[in-house]
């Protein structure tokens, strides 16, 4: 029983670390309707930004340095999203606005990003924190302070996303675009602005994910793609179009992946995320909270 609880606690970290990024992916996909693959580059950038923030300032510890690093990282990836949208995606939309075209452009951004990161930071892992962080012992179960901080951060991100989407006018318009882009166009919503907003917010949400992952594992190349996979799977399992659904699904997948270690070798963890995705595609393609797909084929 202790083992189960311990694995669940470990799972909370994975799940809640990915959670903000998954919400960002769902937000961007909902508003713009294409697979923003370069979200992986955003995550990679977030991890490296957190690394850089610890180089300049104080080594990573929980407490006020965390907030400074979080602020730098989140602002940095938000700006990255703004640049991507204004310099590449928006101009390209006028050339070829199809979902396939946009996705291939994002493949291009991803490839450029990988190369730039490799040239700038090398191919080796870089340490982010110097010493072990505190761990609380609750009845024999180790609860790392980092896990608590991650859960708290993800909770705040969720709350902010909820306020933005359901308590502001911009959020109302974002949801309108996500539910029915044609109608939103007809009633004259300024789609370009909303797309930019979704990309900036969606990218900024990667900030907390990047900081949590960097604190836990340091910064290394190739960290973006597995995170993106979890985020994309969470978006589908939560139901495409549902930002908070993605959040619930991300937390769930993290816990399930870790509980599975009771029976499975760790090398099958990716397989398990894949199996969850597969099960949903076969049994409930619209996910937990998604609308029924209108384009389901015969």
């Amino acid at each position, binding site marked *: 029983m202790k083992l189960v609880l311990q694995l669940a606690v470990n799972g909370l970290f994975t799940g809640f670390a990915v959670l903000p990024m998954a919400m960002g992916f769902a937000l961007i996909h909902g508003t713009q309707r294409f697979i923003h693959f370069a979200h992986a580059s955003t995550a990679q950038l977030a991890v490296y930004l957190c690394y850089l923030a610890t180089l300049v300032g104080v080594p990573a510890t929980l407490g006020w340095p965390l907030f400074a690093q979080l602020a730098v990282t989140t602002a940095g990836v938000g700006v990255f999203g703004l640049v991507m949208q204004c310099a590449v995606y928006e*101009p390209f939309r006028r050339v070829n606005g199809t979902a396939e075209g946009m996705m291939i452009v994002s*493949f291009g*951004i991803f490839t450029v990003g990988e190369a730039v990161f490799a040239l700038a930071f090398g191919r080796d892992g870089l340490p982010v924190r110097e010493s072990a962080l505190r761990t609380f012992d609750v009845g024999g179960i180790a609860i790392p302070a980092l896990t608590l901080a991650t859960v708290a951060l993800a909770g705040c991100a969720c709350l902010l996303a909820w306020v933005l989407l359901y308590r502001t006018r911009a959020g109302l318009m974002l949801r309108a675009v996500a539910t029915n882009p044609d109608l939103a166009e007809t009633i004259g919503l300024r789609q370009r602005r909303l797309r930019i907003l979704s990309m900036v917010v969606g990218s900024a949400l990667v900030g907390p994910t990047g900081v949590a992952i960097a604190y836990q594992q340091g910064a290394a190349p190739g960290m973006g793609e597995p995170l*993106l996979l979890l985020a994309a799977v969470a978006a589908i399992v939560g139901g495409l179009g549902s930002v908070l659904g993605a959040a619930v699904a991300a937390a769930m997948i993290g816990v399930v992946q870790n509980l599975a270690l009771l029976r499975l070798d760790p*090398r099958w963890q990716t397989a398990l995320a*894949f199996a969850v995705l597969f099960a949903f595609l076969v049994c409930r*393609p619209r996910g937990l909270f998604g609308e029924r797909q209108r384009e389901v084929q015969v």
Partner: protein
Amino acid sequence: MDYILSVLTTAAIYVILAVTANLIFGYTGMFSVAHAGFYGIGAYTVGILTVKSGLSTLLSAVVALLIAGLAGAVVAGPSLRLRGDYLVVTSFGLQVLVTSLLFNWQALTNGPSGLGVIPAINLFGLRVESVPGTLALAVVCAVLTCAGVAVLVRSPFGRVLRALRDDEVMTAALGKRITRFKVQVFALGAMGAGLAGVLYAFTTQYIAPDGFTIAQSIDIVILVVIGGIASVWGSVAGAVLYTVLPELLSAIGIPNSLVGDLNELLFGLVVIVLLFVRPAGVVTARVIGAERDRPRAGEPA
């Protein structure tokens, strides 16, 4: 001289990868980022069967093709009933899964240190071992694959594929079972990538997991787009460019440690710029997604 021949062999292998990827997304409109995964499945099946189980080379090649094709069908099956986005994510999942197993399933794959020494392929008593020999084998396979795809897309089967790429609902209304068609094409394409993997394993005789990652899959998509989608010659051009460019970079004196990254950087920039200035690719065939999103006749624009 041998070095140039081995670069050409790699180019031939990439031609196979590009043409079969083009069959999947250029001709049929299904976007997948798992091509390097199927490539890896082909290579590692041969590697494991010949090195660890001592199976004959030809038999293990056949098994590798079957497993790659089967993996393709299994992945494509459930997601193809849905919108294209689902296939992208599922294939992405398969790709990450394959990479993680290649790295972590040490007992089977030897993990990051790679698998060797894979014996040379024995074609009915003829051992293909010399560099010119493997080049000839790879070129023959590449030509056959290109010819096969070219014939296939001009056949009645190929017309159905183009029809369902351009208008799925209409194709279904004509009584075509589109999901079945798509699964068949996807499995065929995966098998083609498996063939490339088999050739790769037998030519280099040593395989390591970092040749079969998501970055490779994305590169394959990009080189097909650069060449021009739905064009066999375009894929040939893209593949040759992709293999020759790094050699040119090192020929002009760029240190080897930078060549790989610079190559990726150039490739990514080229595809972005190209999509802006010439959306149909170098060897023009069609613009991505163009037919589908154009208003049809009789429909208000």
